[in-house]
Protein backbone atom coordinates (compact mmCIF):
# COMPACT_ATOMS: atom_id res chain seq x y z
CA UNK A 1 0.00 0.00 0.00
CA UNK A 2 2.80 2.39 0.89
CA UNK A 3 4.35 1.90 -2.51
CA UNK A 4 1.08 2.65 -4.23
CA UNK A 5 0.76 5.85 -2.19
CA UNK A 6 4.27 6.80 -3.22
CA UNK A 7 3.41 6.13 -6.86
CA UNK A 8 0.38 8.41 -6.58
CA UNK A 9 2.63 11.08 -5.08
CA UNK A 10 5.16 10.70 -7.88
CA UNK A 11 2.42 11.14 -10.47
CA UNK A 12 0.85 14.10 -8.70
CA UNK A 13 3.96 15.97 -7.64
CA UNK A 14 6.01 14.93 -10.68
CA UNK A 15 8.76 13.39 -8.56
CA UNK A 16 11.17 10.61 -9.42
CA UNK A 17 11.65 9.60 -5.80
CA UNK A 18 9.47 10.00 -2.71
CA UNK A 19 11.30 10.35 0.58
CA UNK A 20 9.83 8.75 3.73
CA UNK A 21 9.35 12.03 5.55
CA UNK A 22 7.65 13.81 2.66
CA UNK A 23 5.22 16.55 3.74
CA UNK A 24 3.80 19.81 2.39
CA UNK A 25 6.59 21.58 4.24
CA UNK A 26 9.39 19.63 2.56
CA UNK A 27 7.91 19.20 -0.90
CA UNK A 28 7.41 22.37 -2.93
CA UNK A 29 4.97 20.70 -5.33
CA UNK A 30 2.69 19.69 -2.46
CA UNK A 31 0.55 22.82 -2.45
CA UNK A 32 -3.14 23.06 -1.75
CA UNK A 33 -4.13 22.33 -5.32
CA UNK A 34 -1.89 19.30 -5.63
CA UNK A 35 -3.11 18.15 -2.25
CA UNK A 36 -6.55 17.84 -3.80
CA UNK A 37 -5.09 16.14 -6.83
CA UNK A 38 -3.34 13.66 -4.56
CA UNK A 39 -6.54 12.98 -2.65
CA UNK A 40 -8.32 12.40 -5.91
CA UNK A 41 -5.57 10.05 -7.15
CA UNK A 42 -5.80 8.07 -3.91
CA UNK A 43 -9.59 7.91 -4.02
CA UNK A 44 -9.42 6.55 -7.54
CA UNK A 45 -6.53 4.19 -6.89
CA UNK A 46 -7.96 2.63 -3.72
CA UNK A 47 -11.62 3.11 -4.60
CA UNK A 48 -12.41 4.91 -1.36
CA UNK A 49 -13.98 8.22 -0.47
CA UNK A 50 -12.33 10.42 2.12
CA UNK A 51 -14.40 12.77 4.20
CA UNK A 52 -13.59 16.47 4.03
CA UNK A 53 -12.30 16.21 7.61
CA UNK A 54 -9.81 13.56 6.45
CA UNK A 55 -8.36 15.91 3.84
CA UNK A 56 -6.57 18.10 6.35
CA UNK A 57 -5.16 15.17 8.30
CA UNK A 58 -3.44 13.52 5.37
CA UNK A 59 -0.14 15.33 5.27
CA UNK A 60 2.38 12.51 5.82
CA UNK A 61 2.89 9.01 4.43
CA UNK A 62 1.94 7.47 7.77
CA UNK A 63 -1.22 9.53 8.14
CA UNK A 64 -2.32 8.66 4.63
CA UNK A 65 -1.59 4.98 5.09
CA UNK A 66 -3.45 4.83 8.40
CA UNK A 67 -6.43 6.66 6.97
CA UNK A 68 -6.56 4.31 4.00
CA UNK A 69 -6.29 1.24 6.21
CA UNK A 70 -9.14 2.43 8.40
CA UNK A 71 -11.32 3.01 5.34
CA UNK A 72 -10.52 -0.27 3.64
CA UNK A 73 -11.02 -2.45 6.72
Amino acid at each position, binding site marked *: MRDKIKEAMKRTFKLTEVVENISPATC*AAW*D*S*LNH*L*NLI*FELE*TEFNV*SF*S*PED*FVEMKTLNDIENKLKSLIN
Partner: protein
Amino acid sequence: MKYFIFRNMTIERFFQNLNADFSGYEDVSVIDEQADRYIWFYLAPIAENHIIAEKVSYYVELIEMIAKRITPGKMFIVFTMKCVFTVQSVLSDRMIDDIVNTYNTSLYDLASKYGNIKVLDFSRFLSNYKSEELIDWKYYFIAQMGFNPMIAHSFQEWFIAQIEAIELKRKKCLVLDLDNTLWGGIVGEDGIEGISLGGDYPGKAFSVFQSLILELSNQGIILAVCSKNNIEDVRQIWKQHPDIILKEELFAALRVNWNNKADNISEIAQELNIGLDSMVYLDDNPTEREIIKNYLPEVTVPEFPEQPYMLPYFLKKIAQRYFSIYALTEEDKFKTKQYKQNTERMKSKEQFIDMDSYLRSLSMQLTVERLNKLNIARFAQMTQKTNQFNLTTPRYNESDIQTFEDKGHWVYGLRVKDRFGDNGITGLIIIAINDKNAYLDTLLLSCRILGKNIEYAFITYFLNKLKLFGIEKVKALYIRTDKNTQVESFYERAGFKLDKCSVNRKEYIMNLNRTDFVLSDLYKMEEA
Protein backbone atom coordinates in the same frame (compact mmCIF):
# COMPACT_ATOMS: atom_id res chain seq x y z
CA MET B 1 1.45 26.90 -27.16
CA LYS B 2 0.79 28.75 -23.94
CA TYR B 3 -2.74 29.29 -22.69
CA PHE B 4 -4.13 31.74 -20.19
CA ILE B 5 -7.45 30.69 -18.73
CA PHE B 6 -10.05 33.01 -17.20
CA ARG B 7 -12.07 31.06 -14.69
CA ASN B 8 -14.43 31.42 -11.76
CA MET B 9 -13.82 28.05 -10.15
CA THR B 10 -11.05 25.55 -9.50
CA ILE B 11 -10.61 23.91 -12.87
CA GLU B 12 -6.86 23.33 -13.12
CA ARG B 13 -7.36 19.61 -13.32
CA PHE B 14 -9.44 20.00 -16.47
CA PHE B 15 -6.60 21.65 -18.33
CA GLN B 16 -3.71 19.62 -16.95
CA ASN B 17 -2.72 18.55 -20.43
CA LEU B 18 -2.13 22.15 -21.54
CA ASN B 19 0.65 24.55 -20.79
CA ALA B 20 -1.67 26.95 -19.02
CA ASP B 21 -1.81 29.67 -16.42
CA PHE B 22 -5.01 30.60 -14.65
CA SER B 23 -6.60 33.87 -13.67
CA GLY B 24 -7.76 34.45 -10.13
CA TYR B 25 -11.35 33.53 -9.41
CA GLU B 26 -13.55 35.89 -11.42
CA ASP B 27 -10.48 38.02 -11.96
CA VAL B 28 -10.29 39.84 -15.28
CA SER B 29 -7.76 42.45 -14.26
CA VAL B 30 -4.67 40.54 -15.29
CA ILE B 31 -4.22 39.41 -18.86
CA ASP B 32 -1.05 37.43 -19.42
CA GLU B 33 0.56 39.08 -22.44
CA GLN B 34 2.87 36.12 -22.96
CA ALA B 35 0.04 33.69 -23.65
CA ASP B 36 -0.55 32.55 -27.23
CA ARG B 37 -4.19 31.75 -26.62
CA TYR B 38 -6.83 32.68 -24.09
CA ILE B 39 -9.69 30.63 -22.74
CA TRP B 40 -12.84 31.76 -20.98
CA PHE B 41 -14.07 28.87 -18.86
CA TYR B 42 -16.73 30.12 -16.49
CA LEU B 43 -19.14 27.70 -14.97
CA ALA B 44 -22.62 28.73 -13.97
CA PRO B 45 -22.35 29.99 -10.42
CA ILE B 46 -24.10 28.02 -7.73
CA ALA B 47 -26.20 30.59 -5.93
CA GLU B 48 -29.67 31.97 -5.57
CA ASN B 49 -31.38 32.32 -8.91
CA HIS B 50 -31.37 36.09 -9.07
CA ILE B 51 -27.63 36.13 -8.38
CA ILE B 52 -26.98 33.56 -11.09
CA ALA B 53 -29.03 35.71 -13.43
CA GLU B 54 -27.18 38.88 -12.63
CA LYS B 55 -23.71 37.34 -12.70
CA VAL B 56 -24.20 35.51 -15.95
CA SER B 57 -25.35 38.57 -17.84
CA TYR B 58 -22.40 40.37 -16.35
CA TYR B 59 -19.93 37.81 -17.66
CA VAL B 60 -20.73 38.77 -21.25
CA GLU B 61 -19.52 42.29 -20.55
CA LEU B 62 -16.33 40.93 -19.04
CA ILE B 63 -15.65 38.75 -22.08
CA GLU B 64 -15.99 41.71 -24.37
CA MET B 65 -13.70 43.75 -22.17
CA ILE B 66 -11.07 41.02 -22.44
CA ALA B 67 -11.60 40.70 -26.19
CA LYS B 68 -10.81 44.38 -26.53
CA ARG B 69 -7.69 44.16 -24.45
CA ILE B 70 -5.96 41.05 -25.77
CA THR B 71 -3.59 41.26 -28.70
CA PRO B 72 -5.72 41.13 -31.86
CA GLY B 73 -5.34 37.84 -33.65
CA LYS B 74 -4.61 35.77 -30.58
CA MET B 75 -7.20 33.06 -30.29
CA PHE B 76 -9.74 33.54 -27.50
CA ILE B 77 -11.70 30.37 -26.85
CA VAL B 78 -14.99 30.92 -25.07
CA PHE B 79 -17.10 28.14 -23.59
CA THR B 80 -20.85 28.26 -23.65
CA MET B 81 -22.55 27.77 -20.33
CA LYS B 82 -24.98 25.22 -19.06
CA CYS B 83 -26.62 25.63 -15.73
CA VAL B 84 -26.04 22.25 -14.11
CA PHE B 85 -27.52 22.99 -10.75
CA THR B 86 -30.46 25.15 -9.77
CA VAL B 87 -33.16 24.70 -7.25
CA GLN B 88 -36.48 25.62 -8.77
CA SER B 89 -39.69 25.21 -6.92
CA VAL B 90 -41.71 26.56 -9.79
CA LEU B 91 -41.17 24.04 -12.53
CA SER B 92 -42.26 26.37 -15.27
CA ASP B 93 -39.79 29.05 -14.19
CA ARG B 94 -37.53 29.56 -17.16
CA MET B 95 -35.60 32.56 -15.91
CA ILE B 96 -32.29 30.77 -15.50
CA ASP B 97 -32.62 28.91 -18.79
CA ASP B 98 -33.42 32.17 -20.54
CA ILE B 99 -30.48 33.94 -18.98
CA VAL B 100 -28.08 31.16 -19.92
CA ASN B 101 -29.49 31.02 -23.46
CA THR B 102 -29.04 34.75 -23.82
CA TYR B 103 -25.50 34.41 -22.58
CA ASN B 104 -24.73 31.70 -25.11
CA THR B 105 -26.27 33.66 -27.98
CA SER B 106 -24.24 36.68 -26.96
CA LEU B 107 -21.07 34.60 -27.24
CA TYR B 108 -21.84 33.84 -30.86
CA ASP B 109 -22.52 37.52 -31.46
CA LEU B 110 -19.15 38.36 -29.96
CA ALA B 111 -17.53 35.71 -32.14
CA SER B 112 -18.89 37.33 -35.25
CA LYS B 113 -17.69 40.71 -34.06
CA TYR B 114 -14.24 39.61 -32.89
CA GLY B 115 -12.79 37.15 -35.38
CA ASN B 116 -10.35 35.74 -32.84
CA ILE B 117 -13.14 34.58 -30.50
CA LYS B 118 -14.01 30.93 -30.93
CA VAL B 119 -17.09 29.60 -29.19
CA LEU B 120 -17.04 26.05 -27.89
CA ASP B 121 -20.39 24.47 -27.24
CA PHE B 122 -19.84 23.03 -23.77
CA SER B 123 -23.28 21.43 -23.61
CA ARG B 124 -22.16 18.93 -26.26
CA PHE B 125 -19.61 17.59 -23.83
CA LEU B 126 -21.93 17.75 -20.83
CA SER B 127 -24.66 15.82 -22.59
CA ASN B 128 -22.55 12.69 -22.12
CA TYR B 129 -23.25 12.85 -18.38
CA LYS B 130 -26.17 12.78 -16.05
CA SER B 131 -26.55 16.02 -14.17
CA GLU B 132 -25.81 14.39 -10.81
CA GLU B 133 -22.48 13.17 -12.15
CA LEU B 134 -21.32 16.65 -13.00
CA ILE B 135 -20.67 18.00 -9.53
CA ASP B 136 -18.90 16.27 -6.67
CA TRP B 137 -20.12 18.39 -3.79
CA LYS B 138 -17.26 17.36 -1.54
CA TYR B 139 -14.73 18.82 -3.93
CA TYR B 140 -16.98 21.76 -4.62
CA PHE B 141 -17.14 22.82 -0.99
CA ILE B 142 -13.53 22.10 -0.14
CA ALA B 143 -11.95 23.54 -3.22
CA GLN B 144 -14.58 25.39 -5.25
CA MET B 145 -14.23 22.71 -7.89
CA GLY B 146 -17.25 23.37 -10.05
CA PHE B 147 -16.96 20.04 -11.79
CA ASN B 148 -16.43 16.50 -10.69
CA PRO B 149 -12.68 15.75 -11.03
CA MET B 150 -13.76 12.31 -12.24
CA ILE B 151 -14.71 13.70 -15.63
CA ALA B 152 -11.55 15.76 -16.05
CA HIS B 153 -9.80 13.21 -18.20
CA SER B 154 -12.58 12.82 -20.75
CA PHE B 155 -12.94 16.59 -20.79
CA GLN B 156 -9.28 16.94 -21.75
CA GLU B 157 -9.72 14.56 -24.67
CA TRP B 158 -12.86 16.34 -25.81
CA PHE B 159 -11.24 19.74 -25.56
CA ILE B 160 -8.22 18.75 -27.63
CA ALA B 161 -10.56 17.38 -30.30
CA GLN B 162 -12.39 20.72 -30.30
CA ILE B 163 -9.19 22.66 -30.70
CA GLU B 164 -8.23 20.50 -33.63
CA ALA B 165 -11.65 21.04 -35.11
CA ILE B 166 -11.32 24.78 -34.70
CA GLU B 167 -8.00 24.78 -36.42
CA LEU B 168 -9.29 22.70 -39.30
CA LYS B 169 -12.55 24.57 -39.46
CA ARG B 170 -11.12 27.53 -41.26
CA LYS B 171 -12.78 27.22 -44.62
CA LYS B 172 -12.12 30.04 -47.03
CA CYS B 173 -14.28 29.42 -50.02
CA LEU B 174 -17.91 28.53 -50.66
CA VAL B 175 -18.40 26.90 -54.07
CA LEU B 176 -21.98 26.97 -55.31
CA ASP B 177 -24.05 25.08 -57.79
CA LEU B 178 -26.77 27.20 -59.44
CA ASP B 179 -29.96 25.43 -60.57
CA ASN B 180 -32.10 24.34 -57.62
CA THR B 181 -29.36 25.59 -55.33
CA LEU B 182 -29.32 29.38 -55.68
CA TRP B 183 -32.73 29.44 -57.32
CA GLY B 184 -35.56 27.01 -57.85
CA GLY B 185 -35.85 25.33 -61.22
CA ILE B 186 -33.47 24.89 -64.15
CA VAL B 187 -32.73 28.00 -66.16
CA GLY B 188 -31.84 26.02 -69.30
CA GLU B 189 -35.32 24.50 -69.33
CA ASP B 190 -37.56 26.93 -67.45
CA GLY B 191 -35.99 30.12 -68.75
CA ILE B 192 -35.29 33.30 -66.79
CA GLU B 193 -39.03 33.83 -66.21
CA GLY B 194 -39.56 30.26 -65.03
CA ILE B 195 -37.09 30.03 -62.21
CA SER B 196 -38.12 30.58 -58.58
CA LEU B 197 -36.36 33.57 -57.12
CA GLY B 198 -37.99 36.33 -55.12
CA GLY B 199 -41.76 36.74 -54.92
CA ASP B 200 -43.73 34.08 -53.11
CA TYR B 201 -42.50 30.81 -51.71
CA PRO B 202 -40.39 29.02 -52.79
CA GLY B 203 -38.72 31.95 -54.58
CA LYS B 204 -38.64 33.89 -51.33
CA ALA B 205 -36.66 31.13 -49.63
CA PHE B 206 -33.99 31.28 -52.33
CA SER B 207 -33.82 35.07 -51.94
CA VAL B 208 -33.15 34.73 -48.24
CA PHE B 209 -30.61 32.03 -48.96
CA GLN B 210 -28.79 34.31 -51.41
CA SER B 211 -28.77 37.24 -49.03
CA LEU B 212 -27.31 35.05 -46.27
CA ILE B 213 -24.58 33.94 -48.64
CA LEU B 214 -23.98 37.58 -49.51
CA GLU B 215 -23.50 38.19 -45.82
CA LEU B 216 -20.84 35.49 -45.72
CA SER B 217 -19.14 37.17 -48.66
CA ASN B 218 -19.26 40.48 -46.79
CA GLN B 219 -17.53 38.75 -43.93
CA GLY B 220 -14.66 37.74 -46.17
CA ILE B 221 -15.67 34.32 -47.47
CA ILE B 222 -14.68 33.77 -51.10
CA LEU B 223 -17.54 32.73 -53.37
CA ALA B 224 -17.21 30.64 -56.53
CA VAL B 225 -19.59 28.96 -58.96
CA CYS B 226 -19.33 25.44 -60.25
CA SER B 227 -22.38 24.43 -62.27
CA LYS B 228 -23.49 22.63 -65.38
CA ASN B 229 -25.17 25.38 -67.40
CA ASN B 230 -24.78 27.46 -70.48
CA ILE B 231 -22.94 30.55 -69.35
CA GLU B 232 -25.21 32.77 -71.53
CA ASP B 233 -28.33 31.63 -69.64
CA VAL B 234 -26.69 32.37 -66.33
CA ARG B 235 -25.38 35.77 -67.43
CA GLN B 236 -28.90 36.66 -68.46
CA ILE B 237 -30.07 36.02 -64.90
CA TRP B 238 -27.19 37.96 -63.43
CA LYS B 239 -27.92 40.93 -65.65
CA GLN B 240 -31.68 40.90 -65.94
CA HIS B 241 -33.39 39.07 -63.12
CA PRO B 242 -34.90 41.69 -60.79
CA ASP B 243 -34.42 39.60 -57.63
CA ILE B 244 -30.90 38.31 -58.19
CA ILE B 245 -28.69 39.10 -55.21
CA LEU B 246 -25.55 37.11 -55.94
CA LYS B 247 -24.33 38.74 -59.13
CA GLU B 248 -21.40 37.78 -61.30
CA GLU B 249 -18.93 40.25 -59.77
CA LEU B 250 -19.30 38.66 -56.33
CA PHE B 251 -17.76 35.41 -57.52
CA ALA B 252 -13.99 35.10 -57.48
CA ALA B 253 -13.99 32.14 -59.88
CA LEU B 254 -16.52 30.71 -62.33
CA ARG B 255 -16.75 27.25 -63.82
CA VAL B 256 -20.01 27.26 -65.70
CA ASN B 257 -19.64 24.48 -68.28
CA TRP B 258 -20.42 20.83 -68.88
CA ASN B 259 -17.13 19.41 -67.63
CA ASN B 260 -16.70 17.05 -64.73
CA LYS B 261 -17.33 19.01 -61.51
CA ALA B 262 -14.41 17.43 -59.68
CA ASP B 263 -12.04 18.81 -62.33
CA ASN B 264 -13.78 22.17 -62.20
CA ILE B 265 -13.39 22.44 -58.44
CA SER B 266 -9.72 21.46 -58.64
CA GLU B 267 -9.21 24.22 -61.17
CA ILE B 268 -10.97 26.75 -58.95
CA ALA B 269 -8.65 25.79 -56.09
CA GLN B 270 -5.64 26.37 -58.31
CA GLU B 271 -6.98 29.59 -59.70
CA LEU B 272 -7.66 31.02 -56.25
CA ASN B 273 -4.50 29.49 -54.88
CA ILE B 274 -6.27 27.88 -51.94
CA GLY B 275 -6.29 24.33 -50.68
CA LEU B 276 -9.11 21.93 -51.48
CA ASP B 277 -9.50 21.47 -47.75
CA SER B 278 -10.55 25.09 -47.39
CA MET B 279 -13.52 24.67 -49.74
CA VAL B 280 -17.17 23.88 -49.05
CA TYR B 281 -19.33 22.79 -51.97
CA LEU B 282 -23.11 23.22 -51.99
CA ASP B 283 -25.11 21.27 -54.55
CA ASP B 284 -28.70 20.03 -54.47
CA ASN B 285 -27.84 17.01 -56.61
CA PRO B 286 -26.84 13.97 -54.53
CA THR B 287 -25.05 12.34 -57.46
CA GLU B 288 -22.84 15.36 -57.97
CA ARG B 289 -22.15 15.50 -54.24
CA GLU B 290 -21.08 11.85 -54.27
CA ILE B 291 -18.69 12.48 -57.16
CA ILE B 292 -17.00 15.34 -55.32
CA LYS B 293 -16.83 13.36 -52.08
CA ASN B 294 -15.19 10.44 -53.90
CA TYR B 295 -12.78 12.30 -56.11
CA LEU B 296 -11.99 15.25 -53.87
CA PRO B 297 -12.34 13.97 -50.31
CA GLU B 298 -10.66 17.11 -48.93
CA VAL B 299 -13.57 19.27 -50.06
CA THR B 300 -16.40 19.54 -47.54
CA VAL B 301 -19.71 18.55 -49.14
CA PRO B 302 -22.65 18.94 -46.76
CA GLU B 303 -26.01 17.32 -47.38
CA PHE B 304 -28.40 19.75 -49.04
CA PRO B 305 -31.92 20.31 -47.66
CA GLU B 306 -34.73 18.89 -49.78
CA GLN B 307 -37.17 21.64 -48.87
CA PRO B 308 -36.36 25.24 -49.80
CA TYR B 309 -37.83 26.48 -46.49
CA MET B 310 -34.95 24.76 -44.70
CA LEU B 311 -32.35 26.84 -46.57
CA PRO B 312 -31.91 29.63 -43.97
CA TYR B 313 -31.35 27.15 -41.17
CA PHE B 314 -29.06 25.11 -43.41
CA LEU B 315 -26.90 28.10 -44.19
CA LYS B 316 -26.74 29.13 -40.57
CA LYS B 317 -25.39 25.71 -39.72
CA ILE B 318 -22.88 25.87 -42.57
CA ALA B 319 -21.76 29.30 -41.42
CA GLN B 320 -21.31 28.18 -37.83
CA ARG B 321 -19.65 24.92 -38.61
CA TYR B 322 -17.28 25.98 -41.39
CA PHE B 323 -17.07 29.74 -41.59
CA SER B 324 -17.37 31.00 -38.05
CA ILE B 325 -13.62 31.43 -38.04
CA TYR B 326 -11.86 33.51 -40.58
CA ALA B 327 -8.25 33.76 -41.49
CA LEU B 328 -6.57 36.85 -40.18
CA THR B 329 -5.89 38.37 -43.60
CA GLU B 330 -9.58 38.35 -44.39
CA GLU B 331 -10.36 40.01 -41.11
CA ASP B 332 -7.84 42.68 -41.92
CA LYS B 333 -9.69 43.49 -45.11
CA PHE B 334 -12.77 44.29 -43.15
CA LYS B 335 -11.18 45.91 -40.18
CA THR B 336 -12.50 49.36 -41.00
CA LYS B 337 -15.98 48.04 -41.32
CA GLN B 338 -15.76 46.11 -38.10
CA TYR B 339 -14.34 49.13 -36.41
CA LYS B 340 -17.29 51.19 -37.54
CA GLN B 341 -19.69 48.60 -36.22
CA ASN B 342 -17.88 48.57 -32.92
CA THR B 343 -18.13 52.27 -32.40
CA GLU B 344 -21.78 52.24 -33.28
CA ARG B 345 -22.44 49.51 -30.82
CA MET B 346 -20.49 51.28 -28.16
CA LYS B 347 -22.74 54.29 -28.56
CA SER B 348 -25.90 52.30 -28.12
CA LYS B 349 -24.87 50.21 -25.19
CA GLU B 350 -23.18 50.83 -21.90
CA GLN B 351 -19.87 49.03 -21.82
CA PHE B 352 -16.84 48.78 -19.61
CA ILE B 353 -14.31 50.63 -21.62
CA ASP B 354 -11.92 50.88 -18.73
CA MET B 355 -11.15 49.12 -15.51
CA ASP B 356 -12.65 51.85 -13.35
CA SER B 357 -16.09 51.65 -14.84
CA TYR B 358 -15.97 47.89 -14.46
CA LEU B 359 -15.00 48.22 -10.80
CA ARG B 360 -17.58 50.90 -10.22
CA SER B 361 -20.30 48.69 -11.60
CA LEU B 362 -19.53 46.09 -8.94
CA SER B 363 -20.73 48.45 -6.15
CA MET B 364 -18.10 47.13 -3.79
CA GLN B 365 -18.46 47.64 -0.09
CA LEU B 366 -15.38 47.11 2.07
CA THR B 367 -15.88 46.73 5.79
CA VAL B 368 -12.97 46.51 8.19
CA GLU B 369 -13.62 44.80 11.48
CA ARG B 370 -11.44 44.60 14.53
CA LEU B 371 -10.52 41.27 16.10
CA ASN B 372 -13.34 39.74 18.14
CA LYS B 373 -14.41 36.33 19.41
CA LEU B 374 -16.35 35.53 16.29
CA ASN B 375 -13.69 36.33 13.72
CA ILE B 376 -10.51 35.17 15.45
CA ALA B 377 -10.70 31.64 14.05
CA ARG B 378 -11.10 32.98 10.52
CA PHE B 379 -8.18 35.39 11.01
CA ALA B 380 -5.88 32.58 12.15
CA GLN B 381 -7.07 30.33 9.35
CA MET B 382 -6.27 32.98 6.75
CA THR B 383 -2.67 33.25 7.94
CA GLN B 384 -2.39 29.47 7.61
CA LYS B 385 -3.94 29.18 4.18
CA THR B 386 -3.09 32.30 2.22
CA ASN B 387 -0.05 31.97 -0.01
CA GLN B 388 -0.26 34.29 -2.97
CA PHE B 389 -1.28 37.68 -1.72
CA ASN B 390 0.65 37.48 1.52
CA LEU B 391 3.51 39.90 2.11
CA THR B 392 5.29 38.18 4.99
CA THR B 393 3.50 34.81 5.23
CA PRO B 394 3.57 34.29 9.00
CA ARG B 395 1.52 31.31 10.19
CA TYR B 396 -0.38 32.26 13.33
CA ASN B 397 -2.74 30.36 15.60
CA GLU B 398 -5.53 32.00 17.55
CA SER B 399 -3.44 32.71 20.62
CA ASP B 400 -0.69 34.34 18.51
CA ILE B 401 -3.31 36.64 17.08
CA GLN B 402 -4.82 37.38 20.48
CA THR B 403 -1.35 38.34 21.73
CA PHE B 404 -1.13 41.16 19.18
CA GLU B 405 -4.45 42.52 20.34
CA ASP B 406 -3.48 42.23 23.99
CA LYS B 407 -0.35 44.26 23.37
CA GLY B 408 -2.42 47.08 21.87
CA HIS B 409 -1.55 46.34 18.27
CA TRP B 410 -4.10 46.54 15.51
CA VAL B 411 -5.65 43.40 14.13
CA TYR B 412 -8.29 43.99 11.47
CA GLY B 413 -10.08 41.82 8.99
CA LEU B 414 -11.61 42.91 5.73
CA ARG B 415 -15.07 41.93 4.59
CA VAL B 416 -15.87 42.40 0.91
CA LYS B 417 -19.37 42.69 -0.46
CA ASP B 418 -20.40 43.52 -3.98
CA ARG B 419 -23.63 43.50 -5.92
CA PHE B 420 -23.37 39.75 -6.22
CA GLY B 421 -23.14 39.04 -2.56
CA ASP B 422 -20.91 38.82 0.47
CA ASN B 423 -17.49 37.24 0.09
CA GLY B 424 -17.04 37.11 3.84
CA ILE B 425 -13.81 37.99 5.63
CA THR B 426 -11.18 37.81 2.94
CA GLY B 427 -8.38 40.09 4.11
CA LEU B 428 -6.27 40.60 7.20
CA ILE B 429 -3.90 43.28 8.41
CA ILE B 430 -1.87 43.22 11.61
CA ILE B 431 -0.10 46.42 12.54
CA ALA B 432 2.28 46.64 15.46
CA ILE B 433 2.08 50.06 17.09
CA ASN B 434 5.07 51.43 18.89
CA ASP B 435 4.69 55.03 20.00
CA LYS B 436 4.89 57.12 16.81
CA ASN B 437 5.95 54.17 14.68
CA ALA B 438 3.98 51.39 13.11
CA TYR B 439 5.09 48.14 11.50
CA LEU B 440 2.97 46.15 9.07
CA ASP B 441 3.42 42.67 10.47
CA THR B 442 0.86 40.95 8.31
CA LEU B 443 -0.98 41.90 5.17
CA LEU B 444 -2.89 39.32 3.21
CA LEU B 445 -5.90 38.95 0.93
CA SER B 446 -7.67 35.83 -0.19
CA CYS B 447 -7.24 35.10 -3.90
CA ARG B 448 -11.03 35.07 -4.20
CA ILE B 449 -11.20 38.87 -4.19
CA LEU B 450 -8.06 39.76 -6.12
CA GLY B 451 -8.16 41.64 -9.37
CA LYS B 452 -10.35 44.46 -8.14
CA ASN B 453 -7.64 46.71 -6.74
CA ILE B 454 -9.09 46.14 -3.30
CA GLU B 455 -5.58 45.78 -1.90
CA TYR B 456 -4.84 49.45 -2.55
CA ALA B 457 -8.05 50.63 -0.99
CA PHE B 458 -7.36 48.41 2.01
CA ILE B 459 -3.82 49.63 2.66
CA THR B 460 -4.66 53.26 1.91
CA TYR B 461 -7.46 53.12 4.44
CA PHE B 462 -5.10 51.93 7.15
CA LEU B 463 -2.27 54.29 6.29
CA ASN B 464 -4.75 57.12 6.57
CA LYS B 465 -6.09 55.73 9.84
CA LEU B 466 -2.54 55.46 11.23
CA LYS B 467 -1.85 59.02 10.24
CA LEU B 468 -4.99 60.28 11.98
CA PHE B 469 -3.94 58.24 15.00
CA GLY B 470 -0.70 60.24 15.16
CA ILE B 471 1.71 57.71 13.68
CA GLU B 472 4.60 59.29 11.80
CA LYS B 473 6.51 56.43 10.28
CA VAL B 474 5.34 53.11 8.91
CA LYS B 475 7.66 50.22 8.19
CA ALA B 476 6.75 47.27 6.05
CA LEU B 477 8.37 44.08 4.88
CA TYR B 478 8.15 41.71 1.97
CA ILE B 479 9.48 38.18 2.41
CA ARG B 480 9.72 36.13 -0.76
CA THR B 481 8.22 32.63 -0.89
CA ASP B 482 7.60 30.27 -3.81
CA LYS B 483 4.05 31.52 -4.07
CA ASN B 484 4.01 35.24 -3.40
CA THR B 485 6.01 36.81 -6.21
CA GLN B 486 2.88 38.62 -7.42
CA VAL B 487 3.22 41.00 -4.46
CA GLU B 488 6.98 41.55 -4.61
CA SER B 489 6.44 45.13 -5.75
CA PHE B 490 3.18 45.78 -3.97
CA TYR B 491 4.57 48.18 -1.41
CA GLU B 492 6.34 50.21 -4.09
CA ARG B 493 3.05 50.54 -5.93
CA ALA B 494 1.35 51.51 -2.69
CA GLY B 495 3.79 54.43 -2.29
CA PHE B 496 6.37 53.01 0.12
CA LYS B 497 10.06 53.74 -0.20
CA LEU B 498 12.41 50.79 -0.47
CA ASP B 499 14.81 50.96 2.43
CA LYS B 500 16.82 47.73 2.35
CA CYS B 501 16.77 44.96 -0.18
CA SER B 502 18.21 41.48 -0.38
CA VAL B 503 17.34 38.46 -2.50
CA ASN B 504 14.39 37.30 -0.43
CA ARG B 505 13.58 40.34 1.66
CA LYS B 506 12.61 43.90 1.01
CA GLU B 507 12.24 46.45 3.77
CA TYR B 508 10.18 49.57 3.28
CA ILE B 509 9.47 52.80 4.97
CA MET B 510 6.85 55.51 4.58
CA ASN B 511 6.76 58.88 6.22
CA LEU B 512 3.12 59.63 6.88
CA ASN B 513 3.59 63.35 7.53
CA ARG B 514 4.60 63.87 3.97
CA THR B 515 1.84 61.82 2.45
CA ASP B 516 -1.79 62.58 1.85
CA PHE B 517 -4.21 59.77 1.30
CA VAL B 518 -7.18 59.84 -0.97
CA LEU B 519 -9.60 57.00 -0.64
CA SER B 520 -10.88 55.85 -3.99
CA ASP B 521 -14.56 56.49 -4.54
CA LEU B 522 -14.85 53.12 -6.31
CA TYR B 523 -15.38 51.50 -2.95
CA LYS B 524 -17.68 52.22 -0.10
CA MET B 525 -15.44 51.83 2.92
CA GLU B 526 -16.60 51.54 6.49
CA GLU B 527 -15.59 50.28 9.88
CA ALA B 528 -17.82 47.78 11.64
